[in-house]
């Protein structure tokens, strides 16, 4: 019976590999990126269009719905490969562009709105006779990797865009669950922990705590049952790394969690997922059921005698529930408020039992580490931060999206090489990492290597992976205020430093952006910040002042401009700007006057128009609609 189970899995894997071969080498193989971003951009309709087009052309094709390859600005993305020909990835393929790309691929027609993202090259990394499959993109003409991908190294995202996340066979075909097999059948729990420890893997939820050490602590607590918890709350605004992993490769997270369960001696796991991620939750649910069907979850997994079950817990909209103790309170059906540690989760977590909380990516790395070896993982990245970092690159860069880069790469390489720099000829101003608990860095810091320790030393943090690029049109004071408002909205309210301190700090920032600040407000901000950092119960309150402090540190002149000159250099803060018609450019077309909601604009047809600053509510509509760029923003007013 036991042998049979292992045997069954081997058989199933062989079958899956055969199917995978057949599918990817079919006469025509088409993939459609079906992440949330793809669907939002119209991938569902594109898919239907493709089916119609195939029918019309009488082509029989294998269609695979895959996760997100990370190039969100090109969504919807479609790949076509006919046997014996190159595999091309097209971007911007909405329904209307479907015919266009078919014509391009099959008939050599020209592309209009759709673009070629690149030629897709399935690539592999080998170590310890195991292979890591992933995709890479080459530009058609130059034959080298496209810039977006040139500095990337896909480990945790390797399957995203490669396999169908709703097919366990796809996952098995690319060696999925072989790490679990290895752990359960060839390794003791201690050896698993040792291997993870040796790999130097540090938690990807932001704190960077060594994952192996965490597992060792949880294993050491003599209490039972124990729990394995996956933190998929990902509440940072501007971050969607974990979502992509869950949507594109849910089995890797599940495999990692089972391995963790085996390592620490837990038989039950929770995945706490953000409720705003319905697709990720659905795919996880499907993956869990598939794993259960194959006996990869449940009793006596692969005949090892080890049992493991998994349950998804949906969050209900609270950023603080990303904090591990708040998360566990939420799992238990309580208000999501943190508790002071000790007790640490490894000693007393969910239901007062030892619990191990890790981020989605932390779990997703472990099967890869077990397969390719700790030394392989350790050879990547930097000495103290081995491996890769996943970022959601957003804001003002040419290319935005999800990227995975080796640790140690500089911010400049990410922003300018991978991201292609700031678009529209604007100037780079700052890069923000770590979201509301992180910090902003100016251009002088662009050569900072990206790893846990360097970023922290520079005053930003790794965070869980949001990276937002701001250009000259971003007001840094407003940016700081924005994060503080987020904290005020999301503070759980348990401890006074955060509950009241953040409110007071926001009040000051509001005063400053309204042009009513004084220079002593800066000291007051610093004083409040110190109190919050020192006194807050959890890291939310402790780190919440970081964005503001980093702006004061690196962009103090902008604060001063707001306070002393009543000026918003970026022309953002409504109270400090005014709109004016540039007489030389105004043609008197009346578009602005017609659009103004409050009738602040007057002027005869073909005459220069005028904006009454008293009536104007500074909505910016005129600025946006003027076809002659005849409206300018002035600050101070």
């Amino acid at each position, binding site marked *: 019976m036991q042998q049979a189970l292992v045997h069954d899995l081997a058989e199933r894997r062989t079958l899956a590999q055969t199917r995978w071969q057949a599918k990817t080498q079919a006469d025509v193989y088409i993939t459609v990126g079906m992440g*949330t*971003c793809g*669907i*939002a*951009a119209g991938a569902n309709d594109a898919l239907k269009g493709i089916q119609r087009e195939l029918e019309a052309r009488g082509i029989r094709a294998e269609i695979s719905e895959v996760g997100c390859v990370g190039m*969100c*600005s090109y*969504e919807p993305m479609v790949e076509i490969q006919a046997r014996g020909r190159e595999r091309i990835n097209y971007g911007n393929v909405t329904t209307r562009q479907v015919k266009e790309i078919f014509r391009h691929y099959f008939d050599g027609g020209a592309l209009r709105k759709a673009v070629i993202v690149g030629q897709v090259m399935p690539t592999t990394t080998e170590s310890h006779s195991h292979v890591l499959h992933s995709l890479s993109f080459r530009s058609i003409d130059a034959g080298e990797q496209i810039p977006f991908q040139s500095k990337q190294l896909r480990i945790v995202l390797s399957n995203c865009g490669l396999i169908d996340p709703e097919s366990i066979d796809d996952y098995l075909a690319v060696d999925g669950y072989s790490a679990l097999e290895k752990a359960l059948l060839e390794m003791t729990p201690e050896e698993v922990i040792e291997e993870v420890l040796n790999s130097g893997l540090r938690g990807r939820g932001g704190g960077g705590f060594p994952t192996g050490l965490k597992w060792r602590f949880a294993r050491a607590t003599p209490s039972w049952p124990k729990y394995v918890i996956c933190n998929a709350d990902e*509440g*940072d*605004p*501007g*971050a*969607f790394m974990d*979502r992509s992993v869950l949507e594109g490769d849910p089995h890797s997270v599940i495999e990692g969690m089972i391995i963790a369960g085996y390592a620490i001696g837990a038989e039950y796991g929770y995945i706490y997922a953000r*409720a*705003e*991620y319905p697709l990720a939750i659905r795919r996880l649910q499907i993956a869990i059921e598939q794993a259960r069907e194959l006996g990869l979850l449940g009793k006596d997994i692969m005949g090892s005698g080890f049992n493991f079950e998994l349950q998804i*817990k*949906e*969050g*209900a*909209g*609270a*950023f603080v529930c990303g904090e591990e103790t708040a998360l566990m309170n*939420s*799992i*238990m*059906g*309580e*208000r*999501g*408020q943190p508790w002071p540690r000790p007790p640490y989760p490894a000693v007393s977590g969910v*239901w007062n039992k030892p619990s191990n909380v890790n981020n989605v990516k932390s779990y997703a790395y472990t099967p890869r580490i077990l397969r390719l070896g700790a030394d392989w993982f350790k050879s990547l990245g930097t000495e103290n931060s081995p491996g890769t970092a996943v970022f*959601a690159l*957003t*804001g*003002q860069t040419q290319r*935005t*999206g999800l990227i995975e880069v080796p640790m140690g790469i500089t911010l400049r390489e990410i922003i300018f090489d991978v991201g292609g720099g700031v678009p529209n000829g604007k100037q780079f101003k700052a890069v*923000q990492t770590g*979201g509301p608990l992180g910090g902003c860095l100016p251009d002088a810091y662009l050569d900072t290597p990206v790893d846990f320790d360097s970023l922290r030393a520079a005053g930003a943090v790794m965070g869980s992976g*949001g990276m*937002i690029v*701001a250009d000259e049109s*971003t007001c840094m004071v407003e*940016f700081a205020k*924005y994060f503080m408002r*987020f904290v005020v909205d999301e503070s*759980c309210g348990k401890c006074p430093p955060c509950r009241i301190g953040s409110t007071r700090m926001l009040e000051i920032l509001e005063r400053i952006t309204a042009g009513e600040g004084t220079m002593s407000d800066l000291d007051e901000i610093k004083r409040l910040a110190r109190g919050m950092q020192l006194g807050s119960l959890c890291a939310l309150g402790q780190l919440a002042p970081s964005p503001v402090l980093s702006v004061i540190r690196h962009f103090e002149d902008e604060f001063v401009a707001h306070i002393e000159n009543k000026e918003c250099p970026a022309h953002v803060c409504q109270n400090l700007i005014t709109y004016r018609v540039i007489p030389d450019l105004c043609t008197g077309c009346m578009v602005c006057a017609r659009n103004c*909601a*409050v009738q602040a604009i007057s002027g005869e047809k073909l005459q220069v128009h005028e904006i009454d600053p008293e009536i104007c*509510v*500074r*909505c*910016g*509509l005129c600025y*946006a*609609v003027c076809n002659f760029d005849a409206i300018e923003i002035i600050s101070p007013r």
Partner: protein
Amino acid sequence: MSKTNQHDIELNLMDEVFAQYGEEKGALIPVLQKAQALYGYLPPEVLQHISRRMKIPVSKVYGVATFYAQFYLERRGRHVLRLCDGTACHVKGTPILLTALEDHYHLQPGETTEDNELTVEIVYCLGSCALAPVAVFDGTVMGRMKQKTLLNTIKKRTDLK
């Protein structure tokens, strides 16, 4: 046993939910989520009913329901517009969209028009930042939103002028 009450709420719709979660520890949040899916919001009767059936003090049910942003204790508009004010969207222009709503419909985030036609809400990042600014109108995600498109959408899809 069907109960009519102030809001004419069919409490026995919840029976299935209790059957599903009856035995589970810590099931309050999923039960509230299911209840909201059934009734559209969480009226007081439903909170009391959940408290009684799950033997959880109503103060706790209420404390949990008001802690999480996802739960609504008041009825919402027939149409719901959610605007993302996540970092990317914020930088790319959500504040301008909000100003437009304020100017045209006197709507602030979290508010519903008096005729119950439209509710406007702020969300932080829908994970589609590349399409920023993102709006979700009755569940349809719309990217690269502009003031005009937004106002047109509202005109087209609601009874508001």
